[in-house]
């Protein structure tokens, strides 16, 4: 459109976009509008952005060292102006440990997502596109994994692999891919017989190329929603493993492990265990709110129930 009086908003919302970029931006704008209309979702987004910021700027934000405490003068102090959230039994500042712990939380969720989502995507799209016995076998395996108790299985995995944050990540990833496979398969089934796939096929694209270039990108958005909704569960499982002493090992400031070490002092120095738990609650709440908001914004079908 050559009309120069058009505002930016009109340009984004036009029915007849002139270029692919304009169409994409327009769609993104509509989604964003729908997302920001949901106040809780915006709060969730804020929490996650704050988490990212805290993790990135941890050395600048932390007032004390997360590892070295003042054993002589600062054991188990209540919250004060020097130690905002008090100190633990090693005389370490709890706030500083929480700030550095955000990096571990982020590491866990990012790595689990990076490992589990592609496995699910690959299994699901392959099953959906191939159909027949490949589909049957892959989906049976998926359903088998889906029927397992996740936390207990992760526990057993870590028990065999040995405690540690890397093994906890592997264990959680190995138990959390099945829902992604189901979603990817469902999306694949809706597009596999569409005209554009037939067109690509006529042009001689290999099944591999069709799945990788033309089907997978369409699964991404519903996958992102599901991964975001699962983040809270991942954080809680990782914290549970840490609480049982199977996740990150001391002196790493992992939040679940911090609760475990504060457990002995719960009756008298309750803040040692209370603060990391509150951090877990806030972050997983943030992911749940964000995930709910994303689902409602991206999914126009289920009219915001």
């Amino acid at each position, binding site marked *: 459109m050559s009309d120069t009086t058009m505002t930016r908003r009109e340009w984004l919302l036009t029915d007849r976009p002139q270029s692919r970029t304009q169409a994409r931006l327009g769609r993104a704008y509509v989604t964003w509008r729908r997302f920001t209309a949901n106040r809780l979702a915006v709060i969730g987004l804020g929490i996650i952005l704050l988490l990212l910021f805290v993790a990135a700027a941890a050395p600048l934000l932390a007032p004390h060292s997360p590892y070295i405490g003042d054993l002589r003068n600062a054991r188990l102090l209540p919250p004060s102006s020097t130690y905002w959230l008090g100190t633990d039994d090693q005389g370490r500042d709890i706030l500083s440990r929480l700030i550095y712990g955000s990096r571990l939380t982020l590491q866990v969720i990012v790595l689990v997502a990076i490992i589990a989502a592609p496995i699910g995507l690959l299994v699901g799209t392959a099953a959906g596109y191939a159909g027949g016995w490949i589909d049957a076998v892959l989906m*049976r*395996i998926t*359903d*088998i*994994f889906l*029927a*397992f*108790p*996740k*936390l*207990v*299985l992760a*526990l*057993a*995995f870590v*028990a*065999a*692999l040995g405690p540690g944050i890397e093994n906890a990540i592997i264990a959680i990833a190995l138990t959390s891919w099945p829902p992604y496979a189901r979603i990817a398969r469902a999306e694949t089934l809706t597009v596999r017989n569409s005209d554009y796939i037939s067109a690509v096929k006529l042009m001689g694209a290999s099944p591999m190329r069709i799945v990788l270039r033309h089907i997978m990108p369409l699964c991404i958005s519903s996958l992102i929603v599901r991964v975001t909704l699962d983040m*809270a569960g991942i954080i*809680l499982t990782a*914290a*549970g493993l840490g*609480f*049982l*002493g*199977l996740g990150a090992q001391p002196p790493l400031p992992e939040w*679940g492990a911090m*609760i475990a070490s504060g*457990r002995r002092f*719960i*009756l008298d120095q*309750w803040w040692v*265990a*209370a603060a*990391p*738990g509150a951090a*877990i*609650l806030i972050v*997983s*709440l943030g*992911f*749940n*709110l964000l995930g*709910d908001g994303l689902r409602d914004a991206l999914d126009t079908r289920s009219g915001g*129930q």
Partner: protein
Amino acid sequence: MSSMETQAPARRANKRASAILKAVVSFVVIVGTTYLGLLAVTFFIGRIVPIDPVLAIVGDRAPAHVVERTRIEMGFNLPYYQQFYLYVKGVLSGDFGTSVLTTNPVMDDIRRVFPATMELATVGTVIGAAFGIPLGVLAAVKRGSLADQIVRIIGLIGYSVPIFWLGLLALLVFYARLGWTAGPGRIDVVFEYTFTPITGFFLLDAILNRDWAAFKDIFAHIILPASLLGYFSLAYISRMTRSFMLNELSQEYIVAARAKGLSETRIIWGHALRNAAVPLVTVIALSYAGLLEGSVLTETVFAWPGLGLYITNSLQNADMNAVLGGTIIIGSVFIGINLLSDLLYRMLDPRTRIR
């Protein structure tokens, strides 16, 4: 023409029989493969992941001939497929090996501790359903109102809170500070010699024994961990109830009922909820299974002598037989409940019945 008409019912009966047969076969295949999958995964965890499973059993200070003998006794010198066959055979006959920690067969240990976990999960589910369903109905009926938002936030927090942390705080507040409930454990030591368990479900046992003092004490012990688990399932149950109810309330029969002049209470509780009840049964069954798993962390916090505590204690002592035995039991119950809820759904909902 007439001969075809007489054949028709027979053919329909045939068709129905074959459909039922097909459903039964597919059910058996699903149960079989799922269970085999569970065993394959635990086998993988127990035998293939550890660098040397024998060392995990006898310890690294055992002399070489003991290690060698154990290896042969346990069949670890055989190829994996034979080991797996023996493993499956053992598990199916209830043999999970011996616990290093308690020196009992793992199966005996589990039989001893499992009722405690089931009792906790049952009371938890009852609490979750008793509060979750009304809250979900309320949220659906007053959709978009303040009440709806509050129920939503209660649910979201339930999804987001680390249950072991909430348990610690609950112990601090309700046991240590307020003194409203009893502390960790299942029953006070005072009752250790006077109270004789019959079924292993202590609440039931106390009623059977007519031991009201013990009943009060057991109730004071169970209420806190069960409420926590209940909150956990309330989050799920209220959310699903809300969505099922919204679905029912938008149906035409509700409009018809309103047009007939039925009271709103009757429409909501008598008509809509009754139809939403079918999928709700599935949800409650699944949340029960979830609580069995959630009990692992809760039991650790409350020193509740159930399967969860047994598993975590065994974990800390590198007692893999016990850990895997517990995993298989929880996994089996999980799978069982999953399938059962599926079957229940089919039986309760006439639309999914085989015609």
